[in-house]
């Protein structure tokens, strides 16, 4: 325990010293497991909205009715504060038992042996015979399951059907007719047809998932399994130059329009504001985006490189159900996870709020309540499962910083502060440095 105590001290120290934002240090104290009266108390932490919390609490209550000797306390916060809080709890020696994880952090956490190996509970008690295997496989780390995907997600394009109609164009029928060159002409046509202020597409050059898809279309990945850069300067240059061309032709939104919008908040996206007919977006944002605009929103696959059957898209776990390696109740944890993914009541309580479930039975159970936009998404998930090349490399710990670097550099290019060549050089050099800084 000595090292844990030491770590907690360091945490308090560092949190306190950094720019006066140091209230985090005390967060790791408290919540002793109250196992005295025979009751097992588990902690479940997740990020999300109050809608998610209400749904989760409902599932938890169902579980507690079934197993009265277990209590499950839930805590939730927004995505950005979730990670510092979780790290604080872990270094304070009071890791929550049940942890909602993101694919970006799986690698970092499992390398430090912080996550419970769930493989030993599969197939019993966690029985997932009808689960989407591509999805499950894509979330493994070195062949071990550290988290069960709540849902599958992919990078697609959302399009405004009304705007396309107004511009007199239709989406291509087949994904293989949908090339980057075709996309450039297509969006330019829309921009011209819709007049000033409305563009064919958003400027997606700052989107890390979009550049990843672009690089995967070349048969590569963003990172190696050792956590190093796997793309080269040419890849980065081609990406930046492509969007530079669209920007100059007027096919994509100007930087002024872009910086007035947000790509992470659907209501503030260029699509919802009807400033662009096409957005590159995680597929599960279709519902929220549709809710934010009176126009009809469609979902399709990303453009691909000419003549390539592999269009780089892959299925990614929207989020995962993981557990702490130090939990006192691994069996209870496995029991609860089994319940979440297989109990009818729990499946209905959670709905598709965390993504479309990976199990066929859960999908069938939820089908009557699915909206049209969800059904489109579900069908495309099946298509991608059948055709895509799964991503088997996990994002390294520095991936978050690389994503921010891409945003910064793409902004520099769009505002004319950098050339495409400079942007490519900078992105490559700074990516290496960000990945190096983490070490491990």
């Amino acid at each position: 325990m000595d090292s844990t105590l030491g770590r907690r001290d360091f945490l308090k120290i560092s949190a306190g010293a950094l720019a006066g934002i140091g209230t985090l240090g005390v967060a790791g104290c408290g919540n002793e497991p109250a196992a005295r009266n025979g009751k097992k108390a588990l902690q479940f932490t997740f990020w999300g909205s109050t809608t998610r919390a209400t749904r989760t609490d409902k599932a938890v209550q169902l579980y507690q009715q079934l197993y009265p000797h277990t209590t499950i306390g839930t805590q939730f916060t927004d995505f950005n504060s979730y990670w510092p809080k979780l790290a604080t709890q872990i270094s304070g020696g009071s890791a929550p038992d049940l942890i909602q994880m993101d694919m970006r952090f799986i690698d970092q956490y499992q390398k430090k042996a912080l996550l419970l190996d769930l493989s030993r509970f599969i197939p019993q008690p966690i029985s997932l015979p009808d689960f989407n295997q591509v999805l499950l496989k894509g979330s493994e780390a070195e062949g071990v399951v550290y988290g069960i995907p709540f849902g599958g997600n992919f990078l697609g394009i959302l399009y405004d059907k009304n705007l396309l109609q107004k511009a007199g164009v239709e989406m291509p029928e087949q994904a293989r007719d949908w090339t980057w060159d075709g996309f450039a002409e297509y969006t330019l046509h829309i921009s011209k047809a819709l007049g000033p202020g409305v563009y064919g597409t958003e400027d997606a050059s700052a989107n890390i998932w979009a550049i990843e898809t672009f690089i995967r279309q070349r048969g590569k990945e963003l990172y190696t399994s050792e956590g190093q850069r796997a793309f080269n300067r040419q890849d980065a240059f081609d990406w930046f130059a492509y969007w530079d061309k669209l920007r100059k032709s007027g096919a994509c939104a100007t930087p002024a329009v872009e910086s007035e919008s947000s790509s992470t908040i659907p209501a503030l996206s260029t699509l919802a504001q009807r400033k662009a007919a096409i957005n590159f977006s995680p597929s599960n944002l279709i519902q929220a985006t549709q809710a934010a605009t009176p126009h009809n929103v469609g979902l399709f696959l990303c453009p691909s490189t000419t003549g390539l059957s592999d269009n780089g898209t892959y299925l990614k776990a929207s989020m995962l159900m993981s557990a702490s390696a130090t939990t006192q109740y691994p069996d209870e944890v496995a029991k609860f996870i089994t319940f979440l993914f297989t109990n009818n009541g729990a499946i209905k309580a959670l709905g598709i709020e965390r993504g479309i479930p990976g199990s066929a039975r859960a999908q069938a159970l939820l089908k009557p309540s699915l909206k049209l936009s969800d059904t489109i998404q579900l069908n495309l998930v099946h298509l991608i499962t059948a055709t895509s090349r799964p991503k088997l490399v996990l994002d390294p710990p520095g991936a978050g910083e690389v994503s921010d670097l891409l945003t910064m550099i793409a902004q520099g290019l769009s505002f004319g502060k950098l050339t495409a060549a400079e942007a490519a050089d900078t992105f490559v050099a700074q990516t290496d440095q960000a990945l190096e800084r983490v070490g491990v």
Partner: protein
Amino acid sequence: MSTTQVQAGQVGANKKLQVEKRKLPLGVRENLIGYLFLLPWFLGLFTLTIGPMLGSLYLSFTRYDLLSAPQWIGLQNFIAMFSDIRFLDALRVTAIYVVLSVPLKLAVALLVALALNKGLRGLGIYRAVYYVPSLLGGSVAIAILWRQIFGQNGIVNQGLALLGIHGLSSWVADPNTSVYTLIILAAWQFGSPMLIFLAGLKQIPGEMYEAAGIDGAGPFSKFLQITLPLLTPIIFFNLVLQMIGAFQAFTPAFIVSSGSGGPYDSTLFYTLYIYQQGFGYFHMGYASAMAWVLLMIIALFTAVAFTSSRFWVFYQDER
């Protein structure tokens, strides 16, 4: 030495100590009592300030991600800063912010203080009203308001449209102008230096102005010959405080840029980058190193200010 001897020696020493205690001069005894009363504060200083500072000094020489024990890496964090373009961006942005916002804020504060020092009726109300922005300045609401004012369809652009200047883009979202909107925000929060200036102005003896008036000095030369020189200690005090504060500015950039420091790092304040590295990317070691570099920069600038003060700050009791 036998045990009895040792004991005897100790007793002797104790006695001697007691005698000495009784003989403690009054001043020292009073000081001791003073320190006793300060104890709670000292406790805070050592456990909450100095302790954590030493901890962060240690962390600055390590690689530390919160999840596992820190690893000693020597000076690597400090060396890495020089090739980190975002670190250099942060330095540049913060330098622009400090150099422009501090003088501007002090000038506005002094002007308002001079205006309020005219013996207005209801001075208390004006003072309170003009102080309000300082209270609100760090709040989320104001940062959002700022986005609205300087946005593409904000008040500023609408006002310019009335003057026939159309088609301007957002001031906040343009990397060429965004930091200046934050400088204006800082200047608007002139409240606390204004109050200090006001207090300083009240201390300037009225006879001096009367005497100068008799000698035929106009208001402008009165200001230059009397007000300004006698106010230099106050200006110096405000300068140092505001400069230190400006180096550590965080909230406006964090809110206006949604925590990104964008666009194109144009609002990436130093502390915001520390926050991103520490709590966003979990590079606590690197963030600690940056925090210490900032401390050294602030210390350097403060030292320069103090050294220069000998040449321009005038204390009335000096002859």
